[in-house]
Structures are given as C-alpha cells and as structure tokens.
C-alpha cells in the first residue's frame, strides 16, 4: 500500500472511531507521524518565534477540527493523492494561523517593514520607494496623476459612454409604477412606465456625481416610491450597468 493510500486509511479510521478510543488515538498518532514526513508541510524558519511550539499547536488544531475536514471531502471516493493534497493544504493553513497567533501573543509582526521588497529587487527596503506621503490629504494631489483635462482613460471613456448612452441601453431601462397604489397585484392596466427614472439618470447620480446621491434622495426628487426605485435598480439597473462596465473593461482603449 502506498503512502497516500495509507494516509486515507488512517483518516477513514479516524472518521469511524470514537474520540478517546484506543483505535482513534492510534490513528491520531499515525496521522501526526505521517504529516511530519511530508515535504509539502510548511515550517517557519523565523527564529523570533518558537516554531516547534507552533507545530505542536498546529497538530492539535488539526486533530481538534478533523471532523470539519471530513465534511469537505468524500474520503471513500476521492483519489488518495488528492486527499493528501487537501489535508496538507488544510494543515498548512492551520500552521500559519498558529504562527500568526504566536506573533500576536508576543506583540510582534510577521512582516518586517524593513524587509527587502523581494529577492530580485536587491537590498532596498520598501520605505525607499514610498513617495506618496500626503496622498490621503484631500488638498494634496499626487504629482504623478495626470490632470483632469488630460485624462483619456478607460474611466473617462466609460463615463462618457454613460453620459452619451449611444445605444440607448440605459435610457430604455426604467421602472413601471402602480397608478392606483392601493390596488393589489401588478395588473398591466394599473401600471405606467417611468422613462424619466431611467438607468442613465440613476447611474449619473449614483456613480458619476461627487458626492453621490442616495437612492432615497433620487426617488424623492423624481417623485417615485423608494421601494419601486430600489427594486428596479437592484433587479435591472445595477446588473445592466455592471454588464456595461465589465464589458468596457475588456475593450481596447480608444
């Protein structure tokens, strides 16, 4: 029997035996022994934390939550190598979580601010590259951003498209409202279209205006019920706008 099959057998035993029983404990020990020999199991080389303690915590964590793992996998019918891969993936996530816990308990950060950017970027620290100080300040503008009147970008193209609505998709998407609001149901004879509350108008006020209007304010201004506008926007307007924007993202820029 190969290693993967043996691992699956151990897991099946674990699943089928009562916690605390000798068979269950034996299977637990076997599982840990197996895990220690798999090369894919992550071990942290950071000397600032006690990595052995982290691994012990992780083993315990895995055993404690193994029932959850069984919910995510069909042990009997999944190929043994896949069972191994998924178990190790879960275990590595637990290891990382325990590592993080260890850093947190010691008040340390896993990622140093003085670390090199990456192996192929030499020994410069990322601090050398931060040139956006003050970016958050509303009054300061980052010098590398182009001026408003110069921008010919996907953003401005998309905004222009919405303002122009060349295909009429947005203007032709509008709600119907009840004429007699007391009347139950949505009989066609009691419904009237509201083309003035079309998706172009709403999109402009919700997404192009700074600051954006709220839907309730738009409803009030246009004399339509909040609920009618909200339902229409959620069901038809927003999906249409998302579709337009998504497709726009894949077009070559003008």
């Amino acid at each position, binding site marked *: 029997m190969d290693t993967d099959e043996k691992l699956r057998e151990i897991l099946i035993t674990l699943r089928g035996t009562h916690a605390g029983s000798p068979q269950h404990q034996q299977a637990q020990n076997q599982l840990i022994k197996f895990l220690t020999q798999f090369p894919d199991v992550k071990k942290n080389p950071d000397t600032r934390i006690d990595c052995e303690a982290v691994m012990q915590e992780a083993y315990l964590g895995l055993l404690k939550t193994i029932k959850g793992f069984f919910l995510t996998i069909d042990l009997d019918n999944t190929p043994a190598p896949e069972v191994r891969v998924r178990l190790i993936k879960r275990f590595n996530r637990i290891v990382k979580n325990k590592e993080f*816990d260890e850093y947190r308990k010691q008040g340390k950060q896993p990622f140093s601010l003085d670390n090199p950017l990456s192996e192929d970027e030499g020994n410069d620290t990322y601090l050398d590259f931060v040139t956006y100080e003050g970016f*958050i300040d509303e009054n300061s503008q*980052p010098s590398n951003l182009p001026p408003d009147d110069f921008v010919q*970008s996907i953003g401005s193209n998309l*905004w222009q498209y919405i303002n122009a609505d060349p295909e009429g998709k947005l203007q032709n998407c509008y709600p119907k409202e009840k004429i007699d609001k007391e009347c139950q149901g949505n009989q066609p004879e009691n419904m009237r279209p509201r083309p003035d509350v079309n998706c172009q108008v709403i999109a402009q006020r919700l997404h192009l205006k700074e600051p954006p209007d709220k839907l309730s304010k738009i409803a009030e201004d246009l004399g339509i019920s909040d609920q009618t506008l909200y339902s*229409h926007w959620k069901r038809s307007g*927003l999906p249409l706008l998302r579709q337009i*924007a998504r497709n726009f*993202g894949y077009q070559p820029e003008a």
Partner: protein
Amino acid sequence: MNNTEQYFLEIPLNQNAHQCALKFAQEQATKHKGKQVYLNTLAVYAVNYFLEWAEWETNLDQSDSWNPGLRALFNVADLVIPDIGKLECRAVTEGETVIYLPPEVREEKIAYIGVLLPEKLDKAKLLGFIPAAEIDEEISEITLESLQPIEQLSDYFFLLEERTPFFQRLIKEYLDSCEEDDKVMLKVAEILRETPLDKIVTKLESIYHNVPQDDWRIEGGKALAKSSSGGMTSQNRDKVLGSPLGGNIDSDVEAELSLLAEEWLEKLADFFRRDNG
C-alpha cells in the same frame, strides 16, 4: 475590542503595491475617483498579501476591483477566495470610526474587512472583519468596534468551506426528490439551480443569526425568493417565476420556499450545535 486585543497585523505596502495602485488610479476619469481607486487597490493588496501568506488561494483576476471597467464605475474593493466567496476590503483612514459600505458592495459578500491606511501609506493595518451574515444587507456603515480579530478569519473560512458541501447536499436532496408532475417543486428547483450557492448560504445564515426562530419560515422564504431574483436577469426571472418585473411570486412556490428555508435553517442550527459541541 478591549485593550488586550489591540494588536493589528501590519502589511508592508511596497513598491509593487504602489505601482499597481497608481496604474489603476491613472485610469480614472477624475482625481477624486483616482484617489478612491488608489486606496481601494492598496486595501485589496494588503488583504491579498496576508491571505497568500496564510496559505489561502485568492483570485484577483476574478475580482471586480481588478476589472478596469467595474472599478472605474463602482467603489469596489473585493477579493475572490475560490470555493469560498468574495471578501470586501474597505479602506479606513486615520481618525475614521466606521467602515462605509457603498450600496454596490453589499451583495454576495462573505465578509467585510477593515483596512487602516495610515497617511504615510507605508503599511496597512488589518483592523478585523465581520461576516456578511451577521449584518443587515441594507446597512451602510460598520463600526470598527464591531469587527472581529483578523486572526479568526481562517477559522471563519474553514467554517464556510465546511458549510458549502453541507448546503450543496441539502440542495441536491431537494432536487433529487422533485417529482416530474409537481409544478411547484419544479419551479422551486429551477430557482435553486439559478441562484448562486454562496448567496443562499449567506442569506440563510443572516436569518439564522438575526431573526427569531419563530420567523424563520416567512423570512427564509422571502430570502430565497429574493436571492433568486437578485441573481438573475429580468428575462430569466420572468421565465422562472412566471411574472413580469416586480410581480408577485406564485403563492404556492413562495410557500414551498418558506417550508424549505425553515427546514434548512433547522438543519443549519443542528450543524452549528454539532460544530460547537
């Protein structure tokens, strides 16, 4: 959060992060929008950095925040975690006490993460997260105090990972039990097939957490019906529910959805009890 929990994970924002944020910002129509995109990109970058370190796969290319058109129009900072769902990574600047959730980000999310971006933008601090199921969908702000520690995020993901097959099984059981001549069941089955699984899970969990058990049937039914309409085009919706825009869902279908939702919520309660026990 009390004083003993005031540890926040810090993520270095290196040159790559800033280059990416700048590139995205330069695509925008106005400087105001550019700044918004810049900060959103850094927030997503920081969460992605942490999750990759924590051995969770992410998919930036499937995220709205990485789609040039969607980020140019919407205030999005999402990150897709394959097989689990979408996170929303909201940037918070110094002095802010709440996370603002624009309407366009309040759907189909598994959790919201608060990411503090100090003025110098040399690092990001992960302030915590809140599962989407624990807040009302209409809510527009989350207080920072209500966030759960970021170290619990992996456990939450494990739970979601375990719950997905749980709901898949429930749905499959229902679909298998459908009889060919039962129009109501067939309609319900079609709704279930058309609705993204993570939407069903999130909606029902939200009810589990926020609604008294006595109201599970009615609220659960409404949620399943809403999930389907929100996730479909109007044409699909008309085809499935047989009613025009905003029309009433067939009352028999609604009743069936309500009973189903109640049954599933009771099973979900058992699932949680077993998990905690």
